[in-house]
């Protein structure tokens, strides 16, 4: 009996020690590999909790299986009584205290990690970028301090803390901003401005999507963050500023793909919204403006708060690239 106890104890210890190693190998057993300090803090908390979760899981399932095997009926009579044990106060106290200790450890670890997850690193290093993120049915709009607007794909500088002000217009619904590699999610709520941040050191594209049911095309409300080396980002911001003033460039295309195509199809072939290819409305800038600003029947007013620059970008894009329908 004692040998068995040692065996079980040894197995549990081995399991507790190997769990973090096994979990570190990503196959969906840990959150997406972090690329920002806040995501890292969350991943570490996850791994810390996992040590206890895994140990308790093995303990309980192990005892369950051991008891099932050891105390099965075998050749005993069907209704023969088992041991007449009604309870044990000491045991009750023991297994009430045991989770309290574990929960205390978990809580303490979370509070230690919390500042690194929650607080934007202080701007002591110099620059910090602020971007306003607006969730809309069914696209993300980003506004940079110099007035540059981008849709769905956010450009950001590597190595710089980026502070995000996340919200949604009053006439819209709740969305949730989430790029798993760059931290946890935060809801975009009409009438409220929430904050989050990230600081990605490695240039690359990090993807995510809206995480709060927001209507028919919730599934297509994708978001990505393209992290560029700092100089490249500065150049991008300049170029976009100039394009926007000139009424040309990528914004129109982004608007078409983000705000129109998710319901009407990439080439206007129609989807949950009607076919747009060949529609006379598209050729009439005023009609387009009226449509995006006010919506129509079940179509949300996707451009209700747009600047005139934004509307012009879309109409200019449509003029040059009328949807082909296929």
């Amino acid at each position: 009996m004692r040998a068995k106890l040692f065996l079980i104890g040894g197995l549990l210890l081995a399991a507790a020690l190997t769990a973090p190693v096994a979990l570190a190998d990503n196959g969906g057993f840990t959150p997406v590999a972090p690329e920002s300090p806040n995501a890292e803090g969350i991943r570490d908390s996850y791994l810390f909790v996992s040590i206890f979760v895994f140990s308790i899981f093995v303990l309980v399932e192990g005892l369950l299986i051991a008891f099932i095997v050891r105390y099965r009926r075998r050749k005993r009579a069907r209704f023969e009584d088992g041991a007449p044990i009604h309870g044990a106060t000491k045991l009750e106290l023991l297994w009430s205290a045991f989770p309290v200790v574990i929960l205390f450890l978990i809580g303490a670890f979370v509070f230690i990690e919390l500042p690194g997850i929650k607080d934007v690193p202080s701007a002591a290093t110099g620059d910090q970028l602020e971007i306003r993120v607006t969730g809309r049915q069914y696209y993300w709009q980003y506004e940079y301090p110099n007035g540059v607007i981008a849709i769905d794909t956010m450009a950001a500088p590597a190595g710089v803390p980026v502070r995000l002000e996340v919200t949604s217009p009053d006439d819209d619904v709740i969305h949730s901003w989430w790029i798993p590699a760059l931290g946890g999610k935060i809801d975009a709520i009409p009438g409220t401005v929430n904050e989050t941040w990230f600081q990605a050191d490695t240039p690359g594209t990090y993807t995510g999507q809206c995480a709060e049911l927001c209507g028919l095309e919730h599934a297509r409300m994708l978001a990505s963050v393209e992290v560029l080396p700092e100089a490249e980002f500065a150049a991008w911001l300049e170029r976009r500023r100039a394009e926007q003033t000139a009424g040309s460039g990528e914004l129109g295309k982004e608007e078409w793909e983000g705000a129109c195509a998710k319901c009407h199809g990439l080439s206007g072939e129609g989807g949950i919204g009607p076919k747009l290819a060949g529609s006379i409305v598209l050729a009439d800038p005023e009609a387009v403006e009226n449509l995006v600003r006010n919506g129509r029947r079940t179509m949300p007013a996707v451009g209700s708060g747009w600047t005139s620059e934004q509307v012009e970008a879309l109409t200019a894009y449509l003029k040059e690239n009328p949807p082909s329908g296929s």
Partner: protein
Amino acid sequence: MAARAETVPAWQRGKVASWLVTTDHKRIGILYISTALVFFILAGLMSLAVRLQLSQANAEVLSPDRYNELITIHGTAMVFLVAVPLLAGLANYLVPLMIGARDVAFPRLNALSYWLFFLGGAVLMLSFFAKGGAAQAGWTAYPPLSTQAPGNGQDLWILSLHILTASSLAGAINFIVTIHSLRTRGMTWTRMPLFVWSIELYAWLLMAVLPTLAAGLTLLLLDRGLSIGPWDVQTNFFNPAEGGSPVLYQHAFWFFGHPEVYIIVLPAFGIISEVLPVFARKPVFGYKAIAFSTVAIGFFSMIVWAHHLFTVGLPIPLQAYFMIASMIIAVPTGMKIFNWLATLWRGNISFDTPMLYALGFLSVFVMGGLTGIYLAAFPIDWQVHDTYFVVAHFHYTLFGGAVFAIFAGLHYWWPKMFGRILDERLGKWQFWALFVGFNLAFFPQHLLGLEGMPRRIYTYADESWEGYNLASTIGSYVMGVAILLFVVNVVKTSRSGARVGNDPWQADTLEWYTTSPPPPHNFDDVPYVTSARPLYDLRRKLREKSGSREPL
């Protein structure tokens, strides 16, 4: 009885009519259970359609609106029309028998409860035919999405929940009064079966939190606009453009919604506490600890709701409080699990179908409980909230917890309700199909969530999610087969099931003292109760009298 039968008007004596007008708690219990099983099959079929759509990237089985309708009604139905009524049905049947009463305290109110449930269920299911289809805002119906939704589906959803709320409140009052005032002689609070304890807490929780849900729903309805004769009512409780707060609704919903989880899981715990000792041939380990933990869980479940709101931007001290409060629930829950394990310790365990389900419950519920720790730790929740990780978590607690326990209960009490035992071979096949299918369907969903798949998306383009999704879909269809086996078993048993007498399991509680099925008045006499195991005491006394050393 003959004299009483004559007082029943002729039109009420027919086979169908007698069920329609019945106020017998046992018949009402069976009505609840059978109606809920029909809804179970309907809501299950909805999930199979959803799983088909998600089995591959970019699938086109369902349109987005149909998809959103199906997830909304699947979730709402599984909670309000399946889990709660199945437990209410079992409780209806069993509580009076377990406490040695002739019926519940208010038999007519009981019938009203059932028929309101029937009506609410019908309204919800028929809302698919409403203008604009059924509700599409998820079972949580967050505004502004739900207030902006066109058509009547959302209004009917609110109406249905209002009706179901009234039904549950009436039922809760009935259970409380019954348990407090109709216990038989000698049945003190600490001699009451643990299932009855769980129903006591179930009922108090319903009383405490349903009014808040009803209030939230009423505000939602008013925000959607209401026309009564010449008056148009249009409020803005949740409309930020006019100073309202959409998050207010989330508080109202989850103040109800989180205890609702325990409203479902506590009676499931109660079933497990009845089944395990009988098949381990031991008294339950730590009766008072289990009863106490039921009360503790009930209390704490009411002060943890905002852990569902960790991503709305609550102040950090508030999030910290809700983390700590949520984690505290792990203590009484752990107590239960260890007490159940200790009940098996040094037992004489038989593996009849009810026991298989109870053991299956133990093995999967642990998983659901443990993943809850990640969700309670708010920074981790920021990562996994509203993903498939959460979907996996609550299916492990609600399906792995409640449904496994309900099947344990149905197989255990079936011989009492119908005098015939459900086929053991089919029952065991069904268990293994359900156990394997369930884990295959829901375990991979944890991993999908961690990889970044949000819940409630009708499609996805990321092909790296396909493997786990396909596994999950296959698992869900295996579960479908398991449910089909149960239906076959019920039909087969009703025709040719073995009759096994009044007490086939040699159980300890009073419901096994009467005949199977029991007469309309339940008992001719009830023994004086001197412990939590009155039938065990009786058997021992008989054994002593006859001088036999063999168990009866």
